Structures are given as structure tokens and as C-alpha cells.
């Protein structure tokens, strides 16, 4: 019931944001922060209830809960961006993604997995991956807006987007910092995942070469590492190139999170 309520609220908030961007409807903008707070509170109550019901280890092992947590973090990121010209329009991108993720969460079978043997490592690993996904998705969104804005500015035509989203410079900065923070958390998540795997009985350890999630995660990590290195070492790797990288990596990450992980029966 809580999940349905918060998902409906997310849908309404996303629609209100779209209206605000399209028509500059200020009135809708005023109620949005309250809606976002309500969504976050509802989701936190839901997650708290599920942790109490299932226990922390089981709760974080359930993909449904992780997806709801990711949607909550994205909503929180949208809430933090309210009222700052430097991130104008970010909420309009994050909330629809949060809504899609939360609707996607309902498609996940709510079975309770077997409790992992090395529960502490596992909890930290899952939380770090979810947090890093929040930053990577934000970076991907920022990259997408950057590319759209560049296209519009180069076309030299009037567009309703002009003045309704933060400037190019801001999107580049958001993308760079979110990638950096996300990469730190992702690295930490991978390291804790390796520690978790090493503490498992040999028969339960994943196969490093055939587990789709592990292979995708390492590929993503390498791509982000290369992108970050290029940002610092190659001056021309900025602007559109960095934005393309952020969008592509963000899309792969969402795919890993929502599709591969759901279908994979060998991970973990």
C-alpha cells in the first residue's frame, strides 16, 4: 500500500515537474518539494517496515528494496536541487527516472533470498552500489541535458528549453562531480563485494568470468576509470565527449541494475 502510494506520488510529481518546465507553472513548483518529502518519507517507512519484517540482511538482499532505495535517493537528490539556479531542471530529470525505477520494482518477484553467509560485507556492498548508482544516474542525466543544450545552442533556434535548465557549465560540473563521487562509491562497492565473495565457501563463490553482473560491473568500472583519467589528463576530453561517456555509462548501469541483475541467477 505504501509503495503504491509513493509510486502514485512520484508519478504526480514527475508530471507536475514536466508541466513546470513546459509552461513555467510556478504554482506547481511550490508544492513539489512537499511532494518529494512525502515520497521520501513514505519510501523510508516502507523500507523500515521491510527491514523490521525481514531483518537487515534479507532486506538489502531483496532487489525490490534496493530499487526502492535507489528511487528514494534519486528523489532526495531532486529535493536537494530545488531552488538552485546552478542545478535548475535536475529534479525534472531525476523524478521520472525514480518513478520508472519504482514502477519497475513492482515487476520484481518479492521472494526473500537466502541470508548470505558474510552478511556485514554484503550489506555494505549493496548500499555502496545503490549509492553509486544514484550518482552515476545523475551524471548520466546531466550529460544528456548537456548534449541536448549544445544541440539547441548550435541550431541557433529559439527553444523552450533555453532559460528553463541550468547553464551548460553547470551540467558539465554536475556530471564531473557526480561521476567522481559515484566512482569512489562504486570502487568501494566492488571491493566490499570481492571481500564478501572471498569469505564465502568456495562452492558459493561466483564465477568471476561468467557472472554477467560481475563482468558488467568491472567493464563499467574500467570505463569510468578511463573517463575520469581522461578528464584530468586529456584537456580535450570535456564537454560533449565527457557527456557522451556519462550518458552511455549511466544507461549501461541502469540496464545492469534493472535487467541483468533481475535475470541473473548466478550473481551473489
Amino acid at each position, binding site marked *: 500500500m505504501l509503495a503504491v502510494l509513493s509510486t502514485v506520488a512520484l508519478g504526480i510529481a514527475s508530471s507536475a515537474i514536466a508541466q513546470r518546465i513546459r*509552461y*513555467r507553472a*510556478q504554482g506547481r513548483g511550490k508544492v513539489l518539494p512537499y511532494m518529494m518529502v512525502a515520497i521520501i518519507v513514505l519510501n523510508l517507512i516502507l523500507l523500515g517496515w521491510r527491514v523490521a519484517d525481514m531483518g537487515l540482511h534479507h532486506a538489502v538482499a531483496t532487489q525490490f528494496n534496493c530499487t526502492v532505495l535507489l528511487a528514494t535517493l534519486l528523489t532526495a537528490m531532486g529535493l536537494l536541487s530545488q531552488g538552485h*539556479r*546552478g542545478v535548475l531542471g535536475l529534479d525534472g530529470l531525476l523524478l521520472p527516472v525514480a518513478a520508472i525505477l519504482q514502477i519497475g520494482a513492482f515487476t520484481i518477484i518479492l521472494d526473500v533470498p537466502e541470508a548470505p553467509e558474510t552478511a556485514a560485507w554484503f550489506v555494505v556492498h549493496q548500499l555502496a552500489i545503490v549509492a553509486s548508482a544514484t550518482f552515476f544516474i545523475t551524471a548520466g542525466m546531466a550529460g544528456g541535458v548537456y548534449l541536448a*543544450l549544445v544541440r539547441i*545552442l*548550435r541550431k*541557433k*533556434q*529559439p527553444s523552450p528549453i*533555453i*532559460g528553463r535548465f*541550468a*547553464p*551548460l*557549465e*553547470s551540467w558539465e*560540473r554536475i556530471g564531473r562531480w557526480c561521476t567522481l563521487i559515484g566512482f569512489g562509491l562504486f570502487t568501494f562497492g566492488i571491493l566490499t563485494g570481492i571481500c564478501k565473495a572471498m569469505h564465502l565457501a568456495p562452492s558459493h563463490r561466483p564465477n568471476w568470468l561468467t557472472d554477467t553482473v560481475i563482468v558488467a560491473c568491472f567493464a563499467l568500472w574500467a570505463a569510468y576509470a578511463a573517463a575520469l583519467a581522461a578528464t584530468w589528463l586529456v*584537456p*580535450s576530453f*570535456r*564537454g*560533449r565527449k565527457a557527456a557522451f561517456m556519462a550518458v552511455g555509462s549511466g544507461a549501461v548501469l541502469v540496464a545492469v541494475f534493472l535487467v541483468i541483475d533481475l535475470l541473473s541467477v548466478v550473481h551473489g
Partner: protein
Amino acid sequence: MRTIVIGCNHRTAPISVRERLAFDDQSCVAALQRFREQHAEAEALILSTCNRTELYLARPVYAQPRLQEAVKFLADVRDIPPHEFTECVYHYEDLEAVRHLFRVVSSLDSMVVGESGILAQAKHALEVAREAMGNSAVRRLDSLFQRAFNAAKEVHSRTQIAEGHVSVGSIAVDFARQIFSHFNDKTALMIGAGEMGELTLKHLIEFNPRRVLVTNRTFSRAQELAERIGAEAQPFDDLIGLIASADIVLSCTGSPDPIITKATAADVPARRQYRPLLLIDFAVPRDIDPAVGDLQGLFVYDIDDLQRVTDQHAAERQSKIAESEQIIDAAVLEFVQWQGKRDVGPVISAFNAYLAEIGQGELEWLIPKLTDCTDHERELIEQMLHRVIKKVMHAPTKTLHTKGKDGKAHIYAATLRTLFDLVSDD
């Protein structure tokens, strides 16, 4: 009360007439005080901008000033013979005057439709009128103007008629603001000394850029301009170096050939670490080869690009006029009905009291003469009298309410008041 407006604007009068009829705050206060001395019963307000001078009046129906007197008043206070401007003057009364004000304040009657300055100017005009005549002496006009401000806000918020700038300089600044998040670490460079470039640079300076540079082939002209706008003059010799150090470049030289080409600017992106660079070319023929825009991080706009956006914004504003007019029609109707009730209510009460007083007087004459009259019969006579008063009242009350809808109620109310010598508390 009647509402009247007389005035002239950019459509009806040339600037030579408008400038003679224009008021500053001081002359406006003096004129309104003079008006108050001449017409104690009436209210007045002067709205004077660079595009219009209008005198708004609210006065009792059968009071002064009439149209000719209002024109004469304007002529006297501005010291212009009436025949020199009467042909340029328009006037509106009642419903049309209200509609005109609502259109003016909503900037539908402005030279640039959707400009927001007129709303602030109208608010200021009301302040000046309050100061000159006292709050209670502009009570009617105050209500009218407050409703007009509300209507203007509704028009702007519902139609976004003010959205999108319609001057080339503002559009250039819009592009700069869409590229750069802040300007306090940015450098603006102006090449040449064209008027449009200077105007745009002045717009940009409002955002406090870290440095403002000016360069010109003739260094003394660069120095002159730099001094005028508070910038630094730079020699023209290392133009590409200057461009590489700048973030926003405004170019408006009289050069017959491009002064910045793709070949000469090829190393600019690398020299500035591929940070974005906005180049605005106001010159005709162009100073900047459009191919420069192919270089990484460089955004080039010429005067046609800016004009195209300007034209589209202007066209979008025009397309919103019909919707705005609908909002204004509804607001005008609402105001006129509200005002009608305000005008008619006291007169109906006074008329009712007048008839009741006559009836009571006649009863007092009749009853003592009816010696055999029972209490029941006396009661019936009183009831009959009340029924007659009610029926007499019915038709004029209905007419007054109906006329309130087309803004004529105050005329009928004033006629009724004059015919029966009614005294009401309005």
C-alpha cells in the same frame, strides 16, 4: 461614478507631441494638486511613460470635468495650445476606459507587446497620485488600478506573454547565461566600437564579469570606450591571444573581411583548455567566419541568428494576444459588475427608503380618518402599501442590475438619484 481616460500614445502621436505632453514626478504631483483644486469631487491619475501620456478620471455622473475640460486641463498644465495635440488624443469612457487600462497595464497596448515595464510604471503612477491627492481622494481609481494589476499578473502568468526577450542585446545575454553559470570569473571582450556591441556589453556588465576588455584597430577609440563603460583597453595586435583569454567575445568592427577565421582561431580551443567560448558577431559584413563555430567549445552567433530568435519571440507574443484579450474581457466584466453593485446598491436602498417614507406619511394621514377600521383592516392596508412599494421597486431594481453588466448602471443610478433627489451613503 464614471471612469474616463484621455491621452495619446506611440500610435496616435509623434514623439514631438508625446515629449511635450510627458510628465515627470514633480510636474505630475503639481498637475494633480491643481486638478484637485479645480474639481474637488473628481479623482485623477496621470500615467506618463516614454510611449504614452494618459489622464485617468473618476467622477460623479453629472459632475465636471467633461471631455473638453479634461483636454483643456492637459493643455494648461503642459502649456500647449489644445489644437496642437487634440487630433492625437483618444478618449474612452466607462467600460471601454476600464478595458483600455487593463490592456495598457497588461502591456497589450505597448510598443513591444509583453514588456513588463509598464506594470511598474502604472504602480508608480498610482503612488504619485496617492501622494499628490491623498489616499481617500483616489479611492475609486485605486480599486480600478488594483484590479488592472491583478488582471495583468494573470495575463502574464497564464499566457507567458512576456517570455522571451525581443531585443538583440538581451538575446545575446540570454545565450551567454545559458552557457555560463556565473560571470564573476569570466572575461568579456569587445572588438570594435559598434553601438549594438556597446549596449550588449552594458547588459553583460550588470552580471559583474571579472574583466571587461575593449580592443580596436584605433587604440584611442578603444581607450575612449573603455573609459566610458569602465573597461580595460587592449592593443589589437594579439587579437587571437585576447580571444583565447576571453569567455565572451562581442565583435562589431567595420572590417570588410572576417577578422576571425577558422584557420586563425584553430588553436583557440586548446589554448583555453577547451572551455566554452561564446562569440557574438554584430557586424555586417561579418567579423567572424561561421566555420569558427565548428571548433570544439566555440559557439558563434551572428546578427541574423539573434534577429531570428528575436522575431520568433515577437511572433510568439503576438500569438498570445487573443488569449490575453479573453482574460482581460473576463476581468473587465467582473470589475464592471462589482462596480455596478457598488454604485447601484446605495441608490436602491435610498429609493426604497424614499418610497417607504412617502407610504408611511400617507398611512399616518389615512388611518386617523378611518374611524370604524378594525385592526385587521388596518393591517391589510399596510400590507397593500408594502406590496405597492415592492412592485414599484421591482422594475427599476431589475433594470439597474441588468445595466450593471454593461457598465451603464452608474448612469441610471445617477439619473434615479437626481430625479427623486435621493441621498445615499456612497
